[in-house]
């Protein structure tokens, strides 16, 4: 079955570029493309995307807030951030908001397709600097939600090991490494939500809403 994709990116050339190359791949169907999150959210029910490619810096609602909204409406949808630099703080924030990974805007077609496939199969790539940010964010919590294996995988990425090296060291397959990464992303989102709720209740925001 073709995967339904929507693209949210305010620069037309990039938006159309992604759209054209993804349309050329049989397994994808680009159902719609938008310049703002607001438009995309209005049409979310009609589009029913499996995958959303999301820019971060957008006019109006940011890609970070947009990611959170889409994940709330469609929890199974995979949001992939498209970004100029993969190791920025904003990418990390998007991952906390529920994004399943990121694609560097300048990547070639092969690696775009590879990243989307990996994300769908379970486990989008994670860079060293993102891994370090994740490690830090989990370190702040008293009980880490990560399993022992997930912690080992995360630690290995933060040390700069490639997937093959991690797989060899832990006697697991590359696919298993990726599925651990997927779980890390998911737990990051969940724990970020818990954190946000904790902060909100501590500040008594919930009552004010």
């Amino acid at each position: 079955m073709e995967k339904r994709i929507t693209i949210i990116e305010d620069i037309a050339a990039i938006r159309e570029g992604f759209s054209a190359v993804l349309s050329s791949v049989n397994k994808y169907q680009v159902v719609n493309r938008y310049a703002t999150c607001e438009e995309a959210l209005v049409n979310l029910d009609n589009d029913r995307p499996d995958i959303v490619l999301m820019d971060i810096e957008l006019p109006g609602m940011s890609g970070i807030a947009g990611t959170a909204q889409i994940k709330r409406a469609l929890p199974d949808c995979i949001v992939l951030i498209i970004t100029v630099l993969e190791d920025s703080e904003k990418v990390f924030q998007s991952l906390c908001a529920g994004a399943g990974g990121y694609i560097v805007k300048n990547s070639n077609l092969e690696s775009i397709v590879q990243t989307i496939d990996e994300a769908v199969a379970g486990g989008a790539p994670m860079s060293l600097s993102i891994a370090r940010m994740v490690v830090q964010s989990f370190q702040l919590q008293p009980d880490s939600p990560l399993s022992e294996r997930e912690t080992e995988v995360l630690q290995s990425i933060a040390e700069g090991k490639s997937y093959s090296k991690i797989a060899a060291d832990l006697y697991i397959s590359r696919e298993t490494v990726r599925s651990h990464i997927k779980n890390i992303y998911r737990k990051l989102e969940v724990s970020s939500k818990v954190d946000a709720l904790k902060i909100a209740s501590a500040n008594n925001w919930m009552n004010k809403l």
Partner: protein
Amino acid sequence: MIPSYIYHYFIPDALRNRQLAIYDQLCTVVIAYVVATALLIILPSILLLFSPLAGYYYVLCGICIYTLFHIKITGRFMFPLVVTMLTGYAVIIRNCLQSGGILSIQTSTLYLLLLTGFWADRRVGKIMLFSNLVVLFILALNSLDHAVYLENAYVPQHIEVAFVYHISITIFFGVFFWMVYQQYDEAKLQIRQQQRKQIDSLNKAVEERTSQLLTMRQTLARDFHDETGNILSAITRQAGILRLKAGHDENLKPLIDNIMENSEHLYSASRDFLWSINHNSDDMEAVLAYLTAFGQHYYNQFDIAFSARIPAASRYVQQRIAPFLARHIIYIFKEAMTNAAKHSGASEIVFEVARFPHHFRVLLKDNGQWKIPDHSTPHSGLANMRKRSAENGLTFSIAYGKTGTQVQVEVPAGPGNSTNTSN
């Protein structure tokens, strides 16, 4: 001690500037004269009760007042200073001859005069050293001639006259040097405060400049992210569309691929450049982390086991390198990492760093086969690595055998303290 408006009153407006060399000396002279004048008004008045000779000191007092106004008008002091000293000698010689010659108590005022002369101007002081000797000689000679001096009217027959003279001289001595030294110290303090002020303002200027630079770096980084990066991505994406539209046109395909390749290359080069302006590129730790991240990202495309062995920073080992080196180290190892994947067929690659007190040894080891560069195609990678190393003080070496290849670069530690604790 003495308010500045008092001595500033006697210094001409034009010279009332701390930056001028003459200012300090004028202050010293004026303050000395102000103190001397005050003492010459008070002390002889008491002495007069016991000895009418003390009245002559008022002449000296008058000359002092004249001198102050002379300085106020002309800004010069040498002429009235010489007049003051000559008058001083005249008064002292006259008073001594009237009160016992060389035996007179008033001979000790000669020392006073000598010291005030030295205080005002060292050249005058040096001359007075000799003139004092001459005066003492004159006094001694005159004392020999007049054996009947003891009968002289003003010889201090009374203990109290001698006592009061000694007290007055002591007070003059003490108060004069107390005042002028105090003033001297205050002046020094002022200078030091001024210096500190200047240092503070310099520091502030440097801080301001640093923060401006930081803002500039951040703006550059943001601009790259918002502008350059997006435009480059747009080019890549549009070239992608073009390639789809070109279909199987074999004439267009290589051209479009070339555009994409160049765009990718420019993107990667801009990233390296951006990284180097946005980080402290003299920090070896940051350079190593950047290369590790590159290696990890790059080798994840292939089934290659990549790991980095970088020992933790030690405070006893220098962490800094010359800032310009970072770019070259990054270039060389990116090239080496790419070559290892493309040509060696390695399944395992290790990026390893060893720290030494004055240098770093950076290694890239693979377990593949060394492929002798094909001379039919221009293979400039290795030559470039060697050239860059040679030009920038890096020691490059490459070793290959049946078990793999090893690229090694020795990086000298930069100048600075070797017990850097900032990491």
